């Protein structure tokens, strides 16, 4: 087991993380994929691939396309299902000293609740993260995460049955993210994570077709970081529950932007693909920052961006 640098420890909803650096949902698999590449015991934690009540096959290819500074994905939430995760993946994760956040999604409130109930049976899950950026089939295809009312209602229901702290992951595809954040915080969420991907599209001009089979996809990577930092900054000034910052993080400096804007911890997504050891590098970089700035606790800088 590695020695942890105590200056980096953070707490969210009563859960202690050895450091604020996590893998983001959908980009970190079930964690195990990274076992041969990084020391999982050094990682603050990670959010699993989105888990649904039933396994899902996902979309036909092509599912990804690179853009300038980022990529579009339309994976279609392929996953083994909550039950298989509990039975097959969780026992293997027990060998590692890291925080496992189960990311959950569904196409209706009941879907979410069913998945959460399955996960309640699992050992070694620290928290749930609700991915509310999926279209709600019942409400005529509106995205739950784009409607403060729908999101608050789901949060309330989920909180009632969840055996672990509840993190709700915000969609950035909204006019006013503070309104959404406030509704979800008021509904009882223990923490918020943001941002999920922005909806985008790329077109093959010779074939005159979208580059993704699904048509549109979610934009992630460094391209979206300024939008994500701004949203964390706004939400931090609106709610008092802790935030997890996500969006285009690839270096310690990027992670620090989010912490200064108001995030207690961060998740790294796309950068894991092109730099599989990025999480370790960011942890090292945060320790360096503590050295250079004489910080006894990195948590002291959370939200401390001044007015320039």
């Amino acid at each position, binding site marked *: 087991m590695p020695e942890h640098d105590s200056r980096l420890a953070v707490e969210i909803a009563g859960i202690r993380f050895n450091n604020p650096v996590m893998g983001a949902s959908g*980009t*970190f*698999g079930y964690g195990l*994929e*990274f076992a*041969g*590449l990084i020391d999982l015991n050094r990682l603050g934690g990670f959010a699993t691939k989105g888990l649904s009540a039933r*396994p*899902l*096959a*996902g979309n*036909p*290819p*092509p*599912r*990804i*396309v*690179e853009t*300038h*500074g*980022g*990529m579009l*994905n339309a*994976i279609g939430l*392929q*996953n*083994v*299902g909550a039950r298989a995760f509990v039975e097959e993946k969780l026992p293997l994760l027990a060998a590692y000293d890291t925080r496992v956040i189960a990311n959950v999604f569904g196409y209706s409130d009941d879907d979410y609740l069913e998945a959460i109930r399955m996960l309640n049976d699992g050992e070694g899950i620290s928290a749930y993260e609700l991915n509310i950026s999926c279209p709600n089939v019942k409400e005529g295809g509106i995205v739950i995460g784009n409607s403060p009312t729908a999101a608050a209602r789901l949060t309330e229901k989920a909180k009632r049955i969840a055996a672990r702290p509840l993190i709700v992951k915000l969609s950035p595809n909204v006019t006013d993210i503070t309104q959404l954040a406030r509704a979800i915080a008021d509904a009882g969420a223990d923490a918020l994570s943001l941002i999920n991907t922005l909806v985008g599209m790329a077109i093959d001009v010779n074939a005159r077709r979208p580059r993704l*089979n699904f048509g549109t996809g979610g934009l992630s*990577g*460094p391209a979206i970081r300024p939008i994500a930092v701004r949203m964390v900054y706004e939400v931090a000034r609106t709610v008092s529950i802790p935030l997890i910052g996500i969006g285009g993080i690839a270096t310690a400096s990027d992670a620090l932007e989010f912490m200064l804007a108001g995030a207690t911890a961060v998740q790294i997504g*796309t950068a*894991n*693909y*092109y*730099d*599989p*050891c990025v999480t370790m590098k960011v942890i090292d970089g945060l320790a360096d920052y503590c050295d250079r700035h004489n910080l006894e606790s990195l948590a002291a800088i959370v939200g401390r961006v001044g007015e320039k």
Partner: protein
Amino acid sequence: MIDTIATVETNRELTPGYRLLTLSFDREIKARAGQFAMLKAHAAFEPLLRRALAVYRVHSPRRLSFLYQVLGRGTQALAELTGGGQVDALVPLGNEWPVEDKAIVVAGGIGSASVLMLSEALRAAHVETQIFFGAASHRVAVGCGLEDFRALGLPLTLTTDDGSLGERGFVTAPLERFLAAGGGVGATVYACGPWVMMRRVAEIARALNVRCLVSLEAPMGCGFGVCVGCVVAVETAAPLGYESYKRVCVDGSIFPAERIRWEVNAMAH
């Protein structure tokens, strides 16, 4: 699988648009025929994602070559590299070509990069081998390593789309004649090339009852199984179940041709 920074020894243009990159590594890489690496010019800020290139040659455990076609931003950034330059490398990745009793190797265009080591292994194992090598033109054939294949001394049938060298037309034409004449009995077809070529090879092999393996291409996010972006639709017992898609990077890139649902994936190519 090792994630490291390799150093460029040489990065030579074979013919315009085709290059041979030789890298030296600080550690031993155990790369087998058919495996690949995810590579990126270390100092390039764009594009972000690494690019999949087959291991063309293993000169020594710390010295590998890659043969590549310069297409878009990623390979353009690789083409800018000069001796001493640095390359982010994740290697070796994917499964390997099995060496069977009788072999028919089909290389289309730069797909050749994936089957040179296979051909070498087949020759070393004294396997009866027939090579079919297709390219767009004489120039492209040279860029795709024709001389290295010729140097093996194995029987080689050559086609070019424009007839500038060898038989005019697609490589699937002489392959079909060869199999129809019984050349495929007891053999395994190993194919790597453009999607349409592999699809046609698979059809021919299936029609003539010859076992066929293909090494597929797909846009790759990570190369180590985590993004689920590189999938290919495969035949499954339960049509729309979780098992409908396989990842080219870790479940392949080599698949039995009959497992692939060619018509579904065609939209990707």
